């Protein structure tokens, strides 16, 4: 132990003697800590209860299949859903290979020197940049400088840059969890670095990597601000059919409904939130199942 433990400063001798009083205070402490935790849980419960009781009556197939409309009874999420699918699949296509490759580079290839450390610090700082700033980056580079306009491609590239640090960090964690003995065994029989990585380390790290990617994607699905800035349109009447079409996504359609004053649109927004939550919860369940299925097989 490098430094002595911090000694309690305020304990007076008389206090030490009064055991029953100290135990009474301790039991109050436990209740307070439990109450704080339950308060957070209660906040979640109230939030969910409120959303469900407000949106339940507005749930219908029309909500999933109708295009947006000025009349709340006819408005639906169909175009937003296809926009979200476009954005997310394109984001995944870019960010998944790139993120995993960066993680492999940092964990398996990079020499332990100053540059690698800088790269690592850079990535952890990127993970802390507010998402709205990524929106400005997308607006400045993809929409304006490359002149793509407010289209699917620009939005997806913005989201890819936003998800990249999250995917890199979680993939690194997954790679770190693979014990060195596995690599050493492979090196020992003469495998090259790439052979070790591709045939031994990566397969073992797949569940961890997939879990991280699914969580990153579910975060990306709920992101609103970056796409709002980097060019999702508020009112789109047709589904995107290519990279260069304008688009809207589920959260942006919901934001559009929420910011209208009519209560009907807000009820509809609550129903839309239920759709979004169901989507996110099922993705998280998939992540949990992936983790449990694969990890029960190997024990290091």
């Amino acid at each position, binding site marked *: 132990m490098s430094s002595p433990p911090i000694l309690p400063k305020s304990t007076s001798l008389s206090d*030490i003697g009064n055991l029953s009083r100290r135990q009474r205070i301790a039991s109050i402490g436990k209740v307070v800590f439990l109450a704080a935790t339950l308060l957070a849980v209660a906040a979640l419960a109230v939030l969910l209860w409120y959303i469900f009781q407000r949106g339940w009556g507005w749930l219908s197939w029309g909500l999933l299949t109708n295009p947006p409309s000025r009349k709340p009874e006819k408005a639906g999420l169909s175009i937003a859903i296809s926009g979200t699918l476009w954005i997310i699949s394109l984001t995944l296509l870019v960010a998944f290979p790139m993120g995993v490759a960066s993680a492999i580079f940092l964990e398996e290839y990079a020499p332990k020197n100053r540059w690698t450390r800088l790269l690592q610090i850079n990535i952890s700082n990127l993970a802390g940049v507010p998402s709205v700033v990524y929106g*400005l980056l997308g607006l400045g580079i993809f929409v304006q400088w490359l002149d793509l306009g407010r289209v699917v491609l620009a939005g997806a590239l913005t989201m890819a840059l936003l998800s990249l640090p999250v995917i890199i960090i979680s993939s690194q964690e997954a790679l770190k969890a693979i014990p060195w003995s596995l690599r050493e065994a492979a090196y020992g029989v003469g*495998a090259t670095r790439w052979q070790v990585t591709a045939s031994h380390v990566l397969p073992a790290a797949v569940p961890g990597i997939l879990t991280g990617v699914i969580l990153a994607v579910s975060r990306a699905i709920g992101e609103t601000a970056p796409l709002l800035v980097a060019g999702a349109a508020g009112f789109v009447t047709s589904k995107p059919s290519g990279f260069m079409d304008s688009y809207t996504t589920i959260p942006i359609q919901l934001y559009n409904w929420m910011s209208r004053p009519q209560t009907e649109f807000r009820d509809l927004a609550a129903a839309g939130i239920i759709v979004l939550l169901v989507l*996110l919860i099922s993705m998280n369940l998939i992540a949990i199942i992936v983790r449990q299925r694969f990890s029960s097989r190997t024990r290091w």
Partner: protein
Amino acid sequence: MATEPRTGSGTQTDALPFFRPGGSYVDQKLLRRQHLTEKTVGYLLLACAIVSVLTTIGIVVVLLAQAVNFFADVSIVDFLTGTTWTALFQNQQQWGVLPLVSATLMVTLLSMLVAMPIGLMSAIFLSEYASPRTRAVLKPVLELLAGIPTIIYGFFALTFITPSILKVVWPQTSVYNVLAASIAVGIMIVPLIASLSEDAIRSVPSAMREGAYALGATKLEVSTRIIVPAALSGIVASFMLAASRAVGETMIVALAAGSKAQMVTNPLQPGETMTGYIVQVVSGDAARGSTIYYSLFAVGLLLFVMTLALNIFSHWFVRRFREEYE
């Protein structure tokens, strides 16, 4: 996998190199090809890792380059010290950013007041008090809070916290107000503080706990006088990261705090944060190349600098004050 005891690539060579008369024991061609593969893969991976550096450079360059355009029209001193922000008034635009900063700081402060005690106490409860079974239930529930998209919190703040809680307690509350947004941001960052603080608390060696128990300390005394001080660097770092998240939080404040840029003194009044302003402008139609368009990037730059400072400070704090055990 590799059944051949030779170079182990799985590619078949014509003859076993061992029996080639006068030849080397190693298949030179295979070796060269492997070497080429190694080099190519290495550079490809490096190229992917470089993208994250380019992202950082991209953020800085885009924000700076566009902010320079903005500061061609507006003096940087007026921007940083002015107390009137009337960007959307056509003829009398004033660009003093302090109202936006004041709202941002107010939201950050109030949300931290909500989140710090709840987050830290949950962390202590989960690591010191909860049985493994309770913990296995409560921890995923807290993580669920972190997974909820912020737009949902914004909706909750606007349509539930304000009318059903704040209006009941303080009838003079405005429809859009800073307090509701702050409470929602606070709920959102509780799990961040709880999980990072819990990590810090768990890394305190149990020898310290046991030593204190052996001296007759109660559980509360161990928690508050031994564990928390020992894990303080990690706890403070979690507060910093949470504050940075609150500064950058966008949709909650855009929905619930309103879009009236004024110096915020009363949290029951509306206020516009820096992020809220960015959303307000992009929701309208600001012409590309106008001062309003460039102001997005000037405000974004200030936001980026503030969050970066908090993040760097948090990392520095951990490195500087971490107690190394064993």
